[in-house]
């Protein structure tokens, strides 16, 4: 095998890993859209908020410290504890569930039966509010995420694969964090599938996704389902926030990861959990291989736009996305 071929394989593997990270973000969008028909513009900010809360709780940061100090002239910043990662994650899940309840009570409850565009606009407002709220609550500084995730190249993989090529091939580079992310994504998808197929709440969720009115008529509480699905989306946002935050530190640009999910959603469909995963993988591999092969000829930095080109190409043949539901409306 030539070194060039081996490097192409390396790029493909890393593309798959990047795709998993994109899919983690896309999953949150899919869950909410599937259950309520809302395109949740705030999903990226939810990932940011979840990661900020996780670090804040773990490091014992006093919420709203800046505001409290400014009003009362105090100097409080930290509680003085440092929580284990798992405890902080569990507490953060609690906060995300609380957030879901508040969102349902304050926003969604009042917008039942409104046009989808109204609900979409509400989530834009939610995104801006949540970003500002996170800022006031936890501050704008860049925070280091430390929940014990491994980082850096896997030496074992490098050593074992270096023999495949010549001296100019250094073995496959695979980031350990990406491997963990792939494992977590797999567990997440399996868990969500089992939950939606075999649990009572999961079946109710699918019923609401299929037909709101019919679900209501058999006694399923739409409000409970909304809280449930926003809680799950909050949990998925936390997972995405942890994985992306581990790469760059937890900072406000984390909310921009939503941009990486859009082509994945276009390609995979807005209503399919497997679609989000497969879409993520196709986008990840496609953009990385294009950058590797064509990028150097046209000046590089092709990934952002090529992801959308790839998604649009798929849409030409399957407008509903690879796994999306085909909508036929007769007049």
């Amino acid at each position: 095998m030539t070194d060039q071929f081996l490097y192409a394989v390396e790029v493909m593997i890393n593309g798959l890993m990047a795709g998993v990270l994109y899919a983690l973000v896309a999953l949150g969008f899919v869950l909410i859209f599937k259950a309520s028909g809302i395109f949740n513009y705030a999903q990226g900010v939810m990932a940011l908020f979840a990661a900020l809360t996780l670090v804040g709780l773990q490091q014992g940061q006093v919420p709203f410290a800046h505001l409290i100090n400014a009003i009362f002239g105090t100097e409080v910043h930290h509680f003085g504890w440092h929580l284990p990662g798992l405890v902080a994650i569990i507490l953060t899940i609690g906060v995300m569930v609380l957030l879901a309840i508040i969102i349902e009570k304050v926003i969604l409850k009042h917008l039942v039966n409104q046009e989808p565009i109204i609900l979409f606009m509400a989530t834009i407002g939610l995104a801006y509010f949540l970003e500002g709220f996170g800022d006031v609550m936890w501050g704008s500084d860049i925070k280091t995420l430390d929940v014990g995730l491994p980082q850096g190249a896997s030496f074992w993989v490098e050593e074992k694969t270096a023999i495949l090529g010549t001296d100019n091939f250094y073995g496959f580079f695979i980031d350990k964090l990406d491997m963990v992310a792939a494992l977590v994504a797999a567990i997440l998808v399996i868990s969500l599938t089992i939950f939606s197929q075999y649990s009572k709440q999961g079946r109710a969720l699918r019923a609401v996704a299929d037909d709101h009115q019919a679900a209501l008529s058999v006694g399923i509480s739409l409000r409970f389902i909304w809280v449930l699905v926003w809680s799950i989306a909050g949990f998925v946002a936390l997972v995405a926030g942890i994985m992306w935050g581990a790469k760059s530190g937890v900072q406000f640009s984390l909310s921009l990861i939503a941009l990486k999910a859009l082509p994945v959603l276009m390609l995979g469909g807005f209503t399919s959990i497997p679609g989000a995963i497969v879409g993520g993988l196709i986008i990840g591999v496609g953009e990385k291989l294009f950058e590797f092969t064509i990028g150097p000829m046209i000046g590089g930095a092709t990934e952002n736009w090529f992801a959308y080109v790839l998604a649009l190409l798929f849409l030409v043949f399957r407008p509903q996305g690879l796994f999306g539901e085909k909508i036929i409306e007769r007049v």
Partner: protein
Amino acid sequence: MKSKLTMLTAAAVMAAGPALADLVFPSLSYRTGPYAANGIPFADGYEDYFTLVNQRDGGIGGVMAKVIECETGYNTEKGVECYESTKGEGALIYQPLSTGITYQLIPKVTADGIPLHTMGYGRTSAKNGKTFEWVFNYPANYWDGASIAVNHILDENGGDISGKKIALVYHNSAYGKEPIRTLEELSAKHGFDLTLLPVDHPGQEQKSQWLQIRRERPDYVVMWGWGVMNQVAIQEAANIRFPMENFIGVWWSGSENDVKPVGAAANGYKALNMHMPGADFPIYDDLKTYVYDAGLSSGAGDQAGTVLYNRGMYAAMLAVEAAKAAQEIHGTADITPAMMRDGMEALNITEEKMAELGLPNFGPTFSVSCENHGGDGLGIVQQWDAAAGKWNAITDYIQSDASVLDALIAEDSGAYAAENNIAERCN
């Protein structure tokens, strides 16, 4: 009786003298949004220095300085709105800390006659004061930065880098592309191979670029990044085990924010700077007495001594010194923006002056003139010590290569002058 009262009132007003308005220094800051972590320390340092001058010295030449802060969110449109909403307050100088905002403000400040100071950013060819009457970029500009990085690499290699490979990892924007032309010229002059690796905004995903670096094994990587791009690049460099001492960022890629999230793996990473890092300067004693302990700190008061806090403080110090020069030239404490520009063109920063200000060896010595709005193009290289959690200056001030840069500046400013029908001044 009525006439007596009128005379008394008139006499009292005359005795009091004309009331002087505050000297206004707008701060186009960004404390929110994706770049807030960098905007906050700069804004805090900028405001704290003016607070110090007011509290300790009673203002500038006896007139209090007033900082009007306007939030831009690092958004160009908002930056222009901030300019429009504050210029009527008597603004003496603008320092927007954004190349995008700078490009939009250049024609506006030129029309309005208000100085614009873009320290180490903005339009590089604004160094040519013959063309850019109202724009300044001392003490150094982007092209100085590229040249200083190459000069440092030359120093490390005994003056010969022919055949070496240098990769530029840059933010794929007007800002990130700034050093390319200079590096191409320097590549031709010194014989090194230059590889260009653009990273799209915001820079959270850089796997392709760093896999390419891992494949091609450049001897050095130079980075032109900002915000999240910096942290991710340093993390990716650590992931592929690129030697950190051969990884050099521009001064906008060299704050604590860029290295701390990476932890111990960032140890040894280098960055340029146009001033010294740290809080080991006498001015910090004054800041403690007159600002921090007096409860007058800007923001949360937790940024003192960081690289970007120092830069904000340095920017304010240069503005204050220019205002003092303007007051001296025109013999009045109540200066106008046009007088401020005269003060900036007469600015002469000596080591004696820096020591007097409590900032010995903090920044380079340089002078500004009608022709030269960019200073002398000096910068240092600093290196991150992860264990100690601080930047250390590892070189003295390095001079950029004027033999290459002057021609580029003349070419670019000449094209701008031709496009905008600007006649050369300073003749």
